[in-house]
């Protein structure tokens, strides 16, 4: 007797739903949070939602191209965080705040 439970895979739609939920969480986070670090984290959530999509589709199509894409996304995300944090540190030194509402020299 084969235990059916072991053969079952999680259906594609579950992954897509998960990634959509994570993506929307990130999207809303960017729009409503005022702390620039939290905004950065929310952007990372959006990127990771994309990674879930790529891996799920890659498994679905039996095509590794999607997983290769994930490696590139991860690398770019790391570079983005490095640049972003550098900018935030420079900003904190000049304004002693990381709240986006405080940045009013230019009309937002």
């Amino acid at each position, binding site marked *: 007797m084969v235990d059916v439970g072991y053969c079952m895979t999680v259906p594609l739609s579950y992954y897509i739903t998960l990634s959509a939920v994570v993506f929307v969480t*990130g999207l809303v986070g960017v729009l409503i949070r005022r702390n620039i670090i939290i905004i950065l984290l929310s*952007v990372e959530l959006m990127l990771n939602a994309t990674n879930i999509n790529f891996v799920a589709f890659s498994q679905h199509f039996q095509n590794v191209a999607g997983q290769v894409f994930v490696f590139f996304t991860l690398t770019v995300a790391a570079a983005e965080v490095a640049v972003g944090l550098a*900018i935030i540190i420079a900003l904190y030194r000049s304004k002693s705040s990381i709240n986006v509402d405080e940045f009013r*020299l*230019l009309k937002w």
Partner: protein
Amino acid sequence: MTLPLSDLAAILPELIVMATACLVLALEPITPAKRKEWLAWLSLGALAVCFCLTSAQMGVHATVFSELIVIDPYAGFWKLLLYAVTGLTLLMSLAYLKEERIHQTEYYGFLLLALVGMMVMVSAADLLTIYLGTELMSLSLYILAGFKRADGRSLEASAKYFVLGAFSSGILLYGISLLFGVAGSTRLSAIAAAVSLRSLDDPTLLVAMILLVVGFGFKMAVVPFHMWTPDVYEGSPTSVTAFMAVAAKAASFGAFLRVFLEGLGGLKANWHTLFLALCVTTLVLGNVVAIVQSSVKRMLAYSSIAHAGYALIGVVVAGHASASFEVRSLGLSSVMLYLAIYAFMTLGAFTIVAMLRKSGLEGDHLEDFSGLAKRQPVAAFLMLVFMVSLAGIPPAAGFIGKFYLFMAAVEADLAWLAVVGLLFAAVSAYYYLRVVMVMYMREPQTSADLAPRLAASPVMTVVLACALAGVIVLGLYPTPLVSLAAQAVLALK
């Protein structure tokens, strides 16, 4: 797997610019302060070499690196434009950085890195390479925007650009992942094949398309995705602003046109209406809000938004289903022509703004231009030419650009769109000519410390001469550029 030598030879220009960028970044700390300008001249030399290489490649049509990169006249057109713009920006920065007392020469390295990103964007045949190119461009520009570290406004511009840029990249990437789910590949050709098999109302495909429109909309600064543009353009160092307004916009348009015509060409019926709406809102908002600006730099930012709206007229024509192939090609080539002409006049206008100094700062307020004609007749006259060209008044080149766009719209039976464009060109004449009026009709500031001075230098003169030559020559004799654009368009399927 080995890399074939012929593939590497095909991307030689990208490799050269990338190597020069790394060299500049590596040499910066060991170059004596007096010799730092040499790094800029080195970068300029690399650009000249690449310009020759890409010109020689213009007839080639090849896909390399298993269809990740395509070398064709379309990519060649954008690359030649990008070299010219980057070269002029480099020259302008030489003088501008000295005025601003910015001594870090990494600046040139980042400028070249941004250029590599743009070159990859315009010659990418896969969404992966498009994404990587976009990110390389954007990351370099975030850093460049904050290069005036002592100035809070520059840092703020950098932070805003970073937050909204990263946000838009996330949206773009999510769209790409959904397209991968539809097509099973990120190759534009595979996506085109998958689109033709699917029904046009497939929800995944539509959501993916809308996300791509939003992502590219941010990069091209199209209303309603333009919020970052005025703030970032105003706060950034002026040389960087000019580079962003011209080169980043051109590269984004280049990548965007290829994605939507080659990859999502089957969805024309769906995106055509979307772009029509974006085009009209961009024209209205960009031009109307520019009227109330008191900073010339900020006014030019809104004007760059408005110009993206004009360029979108050509995109709408290119996606018009009932138009013939010739008319659609005309729409596309007029977008390319327009952005090339826009590059020269905008660079010229920003150069004048960068040269105007008031007590160690930039004099970018409209007041600072008052009476400029009496004190600096040559600079005032040049600004007059650039403003007239931006407004689209003949014989300046801006007129030719608008003429081709409106002609394409009329031939595609979209005469009303041409009329809307014309109406808002008239609105734009108000705020462009207001600068001219202030320069020629108002009395200059009498007290010496209030009156801005003009930071003239040989390199600035060269930049202004090139921009002026571009505006005048292309205005009087546009035929070579028109035929170059028309040839380039044929490379797109």
